């Protein structure tokens, strides 16, 4: 860490270094790009993995916070902070050419706070429409429905975008054409079964070949982050289940850990093991659904029926203990909501051999199928460099040879106690992603096997204060959700509600690489690639 500090001070002498939970650097906007380039390229730091960037309304001005880590050592984390000088017309330099993650994230910050990033090639609203009045995450935003009433008129979508560049006479505004004049643009979504939700791709085609994809999000943007600012921590919990509903339990786990760590609540061993078991069951359901829908997208309806059938077994186990099927609302701050059902262990133990048997069946049914093989091998290759640049993690990142399993790298809950393999493949194509998921089910079963007989006795939930106030500060927690790294960032000002709460969504990274990996592929491959990426749209839009 000393070398990194020296590097920072050598590049930006006026930077302020603080030792908090993570090393935090506050840097002036003018030094940001130089520092970012140095941090990424210097062999001592190599912060090539930008986890997320977040905008915060600080009152007088806005700050933007960059969380980064290095693929050399994922436990090495750094927080870089910068701020705008102007509240009326805030501008910051872009880092989108340094980290691909910034491309969509900066657009998100622009939509939420109105910060314009100079040099960003496509400065449009990501979630809201161009006609939206105000910037929702500003503290003085008028959230009433009178300001932005519901409008059911369909407006044409603009084919133009904007970019801001620094010219001779200050900051200039340039118009950018998204598609060429004679491009054939095919609209896929927002109501299309293969987009797995309400995602909208505007696809420029050259015959059958994809030239460019313009991703449009926001068709399920529910404003969770803004809502959270007005709610207490236990009240926020239920939103996490509804982000990525397929890894509902894991998301909620992340927020619980974050709040518990910040408030100094110690949970019992029993809780930790129960949470881990539930996480792994959730991961299996998610991968099963992903397998089922991916195969269905490629035409194998039987696979969909099979996947859903086996998923129901876990749904039953969930329902007995938690009362919920898809959304369990099971984790609470300090533990879990209810103790395990007496039948829980027996049913999980019966499920493990059952699932192993079925996995073989899946491979027989689909993996070796000649059509499937032809449609998946060598299609939609995601290189390791692109995966790192866009911060793609989870089964997709691991299919491109990036070792990024947080359960292994930074074990939380009971993951430190169990033994399991991290599945890494190097091909980076649809087949690798497909096989990774099936292998991860196998590994999850292995984890379950080790834990199911070793659930310690004790309290399932510790008593917490009725009102939880977090001490002033910033808290960040990363966990491995079914689709990759899920993060919770809380900025607290000592109140019972957070000042700013941000969820790092794994699906956002998956969608941001779609343009890169689909270029040159056939339009029919878009469906296969989309299925193998397995993004969940409400997780992107939040």
């Amino acid at each position, binding site marked *: 860490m000393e070398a990194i500090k020296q590097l920072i001070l050598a590049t930006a002498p006026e930077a302020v270094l603080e030792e908090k939970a993570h090393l935090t650097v506050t840097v002036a906007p003018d030094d940001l790009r130089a520092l970012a380039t140095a941090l990424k390229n210097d062999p001592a730091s190599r912060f090539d993995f930008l986890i997320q960037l977040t905008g915060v309304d600080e009152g007088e001005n806005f700050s933007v916070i960059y969380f980064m880590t290095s693929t050399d050592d994922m436990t090495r984390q750094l927080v870089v902070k910068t701020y705008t000088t102007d509240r009326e017309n805030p501008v910051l330099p872009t880092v989108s050419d340094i980290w691909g993650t910034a491309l969509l994230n900066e657009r998100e910050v622009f939509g939420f706070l109105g910060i314009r990033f100079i040099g960003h090639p496509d400065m449009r609203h990501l979630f809201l429409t161009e006609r939206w009045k105000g910037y929702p995450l500003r503290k003085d935003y008028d959230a009433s429905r009178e300001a932005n009433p519901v409008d059911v008129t369909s407006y044409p979508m603009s084919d133009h975008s904007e970019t801001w560049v620094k010219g001779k006479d200050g900051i200039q505004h340039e118009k950018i054409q998204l598609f060429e004049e004679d491009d054939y643009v095919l609209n896929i979504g927002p109501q299309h079964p293969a987009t797995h939700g309400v995602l909208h791709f505007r696809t420029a085609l050259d015959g059958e070949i994809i030239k460019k994809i313009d991703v449009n999000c926001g068709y399920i943007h529910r404003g969770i982050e803004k809502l959270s600012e007005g709610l207490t921590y236990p009240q926020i919990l239920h939103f996490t289940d509804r982000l990525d509903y397929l890894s509902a339990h894991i998301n909620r786990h992340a927020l619980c850990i974050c709040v518990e760590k910040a408030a100094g609540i110690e949970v019992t061993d029993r809780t930790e093991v129960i949470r881990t078991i539930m996480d792994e069951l959730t991961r299996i359901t998610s991968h099963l659904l992903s397998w089922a829908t991916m195969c269905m997208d490629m035409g194998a309806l039987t696979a969909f029926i099979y996947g859903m059938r086996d998923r129901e077994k876990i749904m039953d186990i969930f329902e007995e203990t938690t009362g919920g099927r898809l*959304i369990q609302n099971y984790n609470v701050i300090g533990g879990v909501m209810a103790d395990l059902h007496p039948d829980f262990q027996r049913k999980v133990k019966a499920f493990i051999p059952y699932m192993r048997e079925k996995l073989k069946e899946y491979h027989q049914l689909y993996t070796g199928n000649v059509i499937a093989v032809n449609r998946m091998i060598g299609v939609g290759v995601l290189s390791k460099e692109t995966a790192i640049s866009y911060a793609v993690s989870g089964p997709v990142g691991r299919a491109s040879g990036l070792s990024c399993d947080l359960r292994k790298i930074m074990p939380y809950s009971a993951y430190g106690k169990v033994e399991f393999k991290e599945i890494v493949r190097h091909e980076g194509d649809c087949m690798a992603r497909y096989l990774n998921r099936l292998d991860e089910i196998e590994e999850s079963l292995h984890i379950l096997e080790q834990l199911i007989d070793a659930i310690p006795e004790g309290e399932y939930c510790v008593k917490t204060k009725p009102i939880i106030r977090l001490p002033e500060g910033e808290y960040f927690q990363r966990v491995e959700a079914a689709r990759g790294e899920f993060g919770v960032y809380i900025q607290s000002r000592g109140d019972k509600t957070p000042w700013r709460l941000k969820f790092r969504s794994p699906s956002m990274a998956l969608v941001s690489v779609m343009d890169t990996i689909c270029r040159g592929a056939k339009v029919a491959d878009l469906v296969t690639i989309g299925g193998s990426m397995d993004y969940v749209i409400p997780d992107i839009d939040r």
Partner: protein
Amino acid sequence: MEVKDIKIKGIPHEEFNDNEYLEKYVEELRANGVGIVTGVLDDMINWGRSNSMWPLTFATSCCGIEFMSVGAARFDFARFGFEVTRNSPRQADVIVVAGTIVDKMAPILKRLYDQMAEPKYVIAMGSCAISGGPFCNSYCVVNGVDKIIPVDVFVPGCPPKPEALLYGMMQLQRKVKVERFMFKDKKKQDK
């Protein structure tokens, strides 16, 4: 012609909760009378229609997964006549609004509804579609799809259990069973 009691195969009449509005409607029909030929024709058409209600594949969020569960092997709504989901609104009879509808989605939902061929029905599935649910205070969530399109059946839950959705779909079938189509317009003119 005597109007028959509403009967569907799935659940007996007494086991449904709110029978009053349908019973009232049947009484009204009995009092006014229904033409012999048209009444029989109506019954026949409704029998066919109520047993082949094809839903549109439309889901925005969590409820969509439960909707998929209902379509899959275990719950299997094909048993009750919701044979397949159609991907084109032109081929669908019912739209199950599964999930939150936000401002950006509202025009699209309206357009999808407009594209569906008459007679068409709407089921609002889950608390988001009914009232905005947990997100009702948000700056960009439509507080209930009934603000945009007319809703026939509301299925509460977050998300509703598959059994609840099946119940809601059967309620819709009963509603369809008692509809009068033949000379409907003429009747309106008489009034």
